């Protein structure tokens, strides 16, 4: 038994995959015959936007920070896209991504240069972004929002009715994250800044540059996730990504990234996003009332995080 624990401690990703398998078995037990290739294809389709948002969240949490503006940014990007679709796909997408860059830059300046607590800073910018979107929507009453076809394909399309298109975007993001974190100087700096900011300062590293780029990238990922989401729903409303805020943080923590920074990575977040998607699916199958579902969801996430903390101690 202790040998198994030792093994799992050394390879926490294996423990996570086992956990995911456990959820899949649970789903099969609740309703046999549910887990099919088509079900898996849908699960990946839904997990992708969460995992892309989780990529940005991983980047900031590795530095010991957090970004609570990701949901507002994703919603805002989706809304800007839909309301500006008439001026051409390219400019609508560019506008949506630009929102991410603007909010990310503001977060970056606040956290990196003005040294505001990341929690407070991003909570503030998230509220401001949400408010600005409401004002904007009131000016836009007349126009007819629609989601460009290319984004619909991205968010809902499947190749051979089986392989979701957004999976390819996810794979690209994943490859970039894994390579970037492990094999580039910037990746090393993200871990280093999260582990000991003062040591980085003394080693001649301008920490603010690292943090600024970090928050910029996080918001950009959030905007991209917003586009995938709105492609899937084909309806831009101002609460589109609200329910993604907690999961975007939870999938990073379940994936084994320390909230104090310096330890973790994106591979855990990938499995974390899949686990959360499977959990949602399981709770839906159990057919319990919405309030109870929320209680169960929260309780399971908490116990997972606690178990994980034990394992990685």
């Amino acid at each position, binding site marked *: 038994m202790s040998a198994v624990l030792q093994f799992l401690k050394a390879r926490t990703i294996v423990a996570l995959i086992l956990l995911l398998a456990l959820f899949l078995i649970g789903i099969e037990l609740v309703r046999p015959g549910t887990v099919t290739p088509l079900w898996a294809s849908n699960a990946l389709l839904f997990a992708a936007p969460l995992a892309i948002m989780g990529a940005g969240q991983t980047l900031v949490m590795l530095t010991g920070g957090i970004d609570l503006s990701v949901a507002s940014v994703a919603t805002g990007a989706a809304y800007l896209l839909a309301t500006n679709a008439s001026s051409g796909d390219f400019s609508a997408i560019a506008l949506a991504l630009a929102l991410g860059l603007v909010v990310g830059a503001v977060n970056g300046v606040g956290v990196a240069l003005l040294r505001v607590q990341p929690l407070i800073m991003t909570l503030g910018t998230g509220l401001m972004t949400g408010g600005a979107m409401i004002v904007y929507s009131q000016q836009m009453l007349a126009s007819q929002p629609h989601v460009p076809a290319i984004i619909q394909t991205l968010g809902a399309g499947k190749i051979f009715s089986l392989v979701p298109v957004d999976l390819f975007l996810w794979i690209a993001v994943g490859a970039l994250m894994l390579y970037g974190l492990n*094999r*580039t*100087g*910037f990746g*090393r*700096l993200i*871990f*280093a800044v999260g*582990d*000991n900011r*003062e*040591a*980085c*300062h*003394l*080693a*001649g*590293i*301008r920490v603010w*540059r690292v943090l600024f780029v970090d928050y910029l990238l996080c918001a950009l990922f959030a905007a991209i996730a917003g586009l995938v989401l709105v492609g899937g729903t084909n309806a831009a409303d101002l609460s589109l990504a609200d329910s993604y805020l907690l999961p975007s943080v939870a999938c990073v923590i379940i994936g084994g990234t*320390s909230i104090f920074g*310096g*330890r973790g990575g994106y591979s855990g977040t990938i499995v974390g996003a899949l686990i959360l998607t499977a959990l949602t699916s399981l709770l839906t199958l159990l057919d319990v009332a919405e309030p109870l579902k929320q209680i169960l969801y929260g309780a399971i996430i908490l116990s997972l995080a606690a178990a994980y903390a034990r394992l990685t101690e």
Partner: protein
Amino acid sequence: MAAEQDSILDIRGVAKRFDSVVALRSADLKVRAGEVHALMGANGAGKSTLVKIITGVFPADSGDILIGGERKVFRSPAEARQAGIVSVYQDPAIVPDLTVAQNMRLARVGLDAVRTAMRSLGVERVDLSRAAREIDFATLRLIDLSRALASNPRILLLDEITAALPIDLAERVFAVVRDWRKRGASIIFISHRMAEVAALCDRATVLRDGVTVGVTATQGAEEKIVNMMLGTEVAKAAVSGAARAKQTASAAAPALEVRDLACGHGLRGVSFAVRPGEVLGVAALEGQGQEELFDCIAGVRRPDAGEIAADGKPLRFRHPADAVRAGLVLVPANRLQALLPQRPIRENVALPIFGRLKNWGPIAMKDERRRVEEAVRRLQIDTRASSELKRLSGGNQQKVAIARWLAAGFRVLLCFDPTRGIDVGTKRQIYSLLREVAQQGASVLLFTSELPEIRLACDRAIVLFGGRISGEMPADDADEARLLRAAHGLIAADAEATA
């Protein structure tokens, strides 16, 4: 047999491992009532682990602890304290944001008793309502000791208490230790300073690689103790004064020149130059401006006045990055300030390279591995626990803090007390490395709180007193007596008197 029964503390075959790293294999320790007993050993020999097991910080895997002939297992330091066993650990167990008084209350010791102890250590004037973080490290050590004394210990364990203390404060600690011995208490004393062990302790137990290798009376046994600590590799690492640079290259432009440097209240106008290939020692009592001096040269603080020049070019630093780029690199006193505890050795060593934006992209992994391995080899870093830096012993951590600059390259190495709390063997390795670095044309500025190091490691020494240079001498003349006189500001008066 009678001596056996005299042992108030009797430890038999204690073993402890952390994951795959064995900290103690089989430690034995017998301490008599009313003796000062030295616990000696190289870094990583298991001294601190043994202290923590005795005081119940964590349990032993096997072995027995007998106190007054009775088997005891303490489950927490609080339990040990109730039994009269109190420790002052290597890192002060003090919450920085609380006041001193609040810290004392945390440990449930009476303030009056603490004040009495503080008086005996000569720090009674410290305001107990100040936050601990505002108090300098040396004073904090003495307050930590006062707190331990206030609970009236039968057995007092002092882990490296003098490591960060200047001579005058260390003397006060010794006086208090002798006083407690007279009262019948036993003191277990851990220190890497052989001279103070010989002067203060009655007997010594030596640990090597987690095993007790011998017990000896300390009187005149310094060489014997060192041999036991180091085992077979004893004479290999000795640094001879003869290896010192021949001081013929005085015509070369100074690698580092400091003119009238002043910063805050601490540093009030200091000028000196370090030549290429020279190791310049800096000696001073606590708080004579040495921190400010090193911080200014390393770009950590901005000087109020004066000039810093490297290779004849005047420089102005707004960030440590500017100093690093100019080749002035700092190894800070506190290892925790320099290192990434959760990251592997490799990332710790490679860190400074990524300070430049052009190195943010893909890493040439092979080239990096070669550089890191080269630095690790030169410093003989033990890489068994290389996956997380915090699992290395203190000496190996210090080596990593130096190795990083070997890998990144530098002109002047600014070492602030690099051998604090490090064993004799590692110290010698560091001295010979500094010499090697100098022989290859770089320069070293070395502050040390251990005065004998000046002669061993340096070519020349300056002494700071009250933020100014109070003495300068070739290393050959820098015996402890002379350095101490200068460190107390006495040398100038001396010179005037003879004139």
